[in-house]
């Protein structure tokens, strides 16, 4: 195919994904999450409109742009496939870039968010140890998928606190869930969708009980177990 035609095919397939579904919808969802789940110590005297404007005005553009791009290329059910395949590494790397851009703008005290994020990346990469390629497919079968999915959910519970911190953090939280759902690490269909409110509910509970650290540790344990299980299986 001629390169210009390839590029224009990609651009045409990308635009509705970026601005409508899944990218646009997810970004609005992320803004709502960041708005509705503020950190406990945030200023409660502000109006919702005021908070929304401040969230947008203080958004970290490179971080949010990277995570928005990741959300828009997710191979979610009901979305037509892109004209060029996208592998697991690409999706995870661009989401990880958003994390790096966020940390670049942060101070040392917020480093606790790092560990659940890296545990999620490890969990999402683990199933490839039993594969021959990085391209997404029906990979996470059996116990590896369950362990990796559980690690992602635990990581999301650990990251619940960070969602109220900014738009990009909330978008990344949704992106991790979206990657796990799209790569079949969470149950398919309605059961899979139910894991989203489940993670939110558990996250709220963990915050109330101040268990976020333990949950992050659990995420690491589950992710490592998923990797070890994948390594024990013969590649295929």
């Amino acid at each position: 195919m001629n390169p210009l035609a390839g590029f224009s095919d990609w651009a045409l397939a990308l635009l509705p994904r970026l601005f409508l579904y899944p990218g646009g919808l997810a970004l609005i969802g992320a803004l709502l999450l960041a708005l509705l789940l503020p950190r406990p110590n945030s200023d409660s005297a502000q109006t919702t409109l005021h908070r929304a404007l401040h969230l947008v005005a203080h958004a970290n553009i490179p971080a949010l742009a990277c995570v928005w791009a990741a959300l828009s290329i997710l191979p979610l059910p009901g979305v037509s496939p892109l004209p060029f395949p996208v592998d697991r590494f690409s999706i995870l790397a661009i989401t990880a870039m958003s994390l790096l851009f966020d940390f670049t703008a942060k101070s040392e005290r917020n480093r606790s968010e790092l560990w659940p994020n890296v545990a999620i990346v490890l969990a999402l990469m683990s199933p490839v140890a039993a594969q021959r390629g990085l391209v997404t497919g029906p990979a996470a079968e059996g116990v590896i998928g369950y362990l990796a999915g559980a690690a992602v959910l635990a990581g999301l519970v650990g990251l619940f606190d960070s969602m109220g911190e900014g738009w990009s953090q909330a978008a990344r939280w949704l992106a991790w869930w979206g990657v796990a759902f799209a790569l079949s690490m969470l149950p398919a269909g309605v059961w899979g969708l139910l894991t989203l409110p489940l993670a939110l509910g558990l996250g709220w509970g963990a915050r109330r009980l101040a268990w976020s650290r333990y949950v992050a540790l659990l995420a690491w344990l589950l992710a490592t177990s998923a990797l070890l299980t994948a390594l024990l299986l013969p590649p295929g």
Partner: protein
Amino acid sequence: MTDPEPTNSPIMQSRAALWLAAFLLLFALLQLALVPLLGGRDIEVAPLFRVDGLGLLFGTAWTLTLAAVAFPLARHRGGGKTGLLTGLIGLGLLVCAYAHNMVVLAAGWALAGVGVSLMLDELGGSTKRSRAMFALLNPLSAFVFLALVTGSPAFAPPAGGVAEPWQPIAVVAATLAVVFTATRGFVVGSGLDGHEAGEPADTPLRALYVLAAPYTLAKMLVTAPWHPVGAWLLVLLGMLALLMGLYAAYVSQTRQRDSAFGYSLVGIAIVGFGIAVNSPLAAVGATWVMLLGLSWVVVRGWRWAEAVTFVAISPGLWMVSQAALDTGYGVVAVLILPACILLAVLTLSARHETARGWYWPGVVAAMLSVVAAVLPQTVIEFILRPAVRAMAGGVGALTTLTVDWGVGTLVRTAQGTVPAALPATGLGLAVLLAGMLLYWLKQLAERAAQRTDGETQAE
């Protein structure tokens, strides 16, 4: 970061810095001019030098990096001695780049080591000159052992047929030489050698020295492949180096954490060169990490340094990960990405304490790195393919990696399946569109927020 105090008049220093940078740039251009002149052929000046695609790539890249690093150094410290020492380091690295055999390669490392240790002294580091020189010349013993074990053959592909593989003892010696070189460059002057850390100004030179270390392995692949046991050992030792760098970044002081980043990149390159005999894709990935990792040498000290470097090296990480899966090293494929994220974020804390202003070589390096990551097709086709082709003795033909000029690059097997696909240009477009829209949204929200703030205050 507290840069060293200027010693000469600012005008003289700027002039000297410009002359030094101009000389190095000219030298880099001269090397580039050799590319069309050679037309894919190699020039042999036995028994000293051999000019091939690999040597040209790193000879040019190191000279350009040195020019970018030397410019601010010479501006602060005056041109004369700094210029000479920079020239000595450059000469050492060029001797390595174009080395004909192991003995010449060892001599190149020795020259570069002497240059770096003298520069540490010149920049006022607390490590004594003799101690630094001893430390940096220490890896020479591993090189001498390597030359004795291997008989120091020419770094040239076999004239016909298949080359005898490097025996495991030679691979172990080579890995030790690489790890020694990288470790010494990492430790000396960083405060890890039991002495107080020296001036931060020397860190880019040490970083360049560290990042150049895996070149020995690339050179050996020009001649012959690794023995299977040797390849396995390389992967193991490379992963250990990566994890050691990660551990150092986690437990160390700010300045040592900063140096750990380069050390871990060396680990990834060792892994890549280890896998390269079974998957040429890994050779491309390792060369990518070594080449684009140089951007960190130039941009380090900035707020965005790790983020830019991570973006720059990610296509290389992708290639090494896929090659690891091809060859059955699943754990390597899984760990490389999370390890690099962790490393970059841990090293970021050094940024907040040593942040420095922009300077033009850094801006150019950052822009080139991002362009290379978004358009990996150009780097692969025009820069890396000729370099990997030069490793003909140990690395097979690169047939699986194909580029789609419009969207990105992918791996296609002989059966036609696509195990890995990186739509880097397509993702770059998505990030650009998203960034533009967010910029305008942000501007609008800032104005609206100011207005609502004003109204609230008025009330």
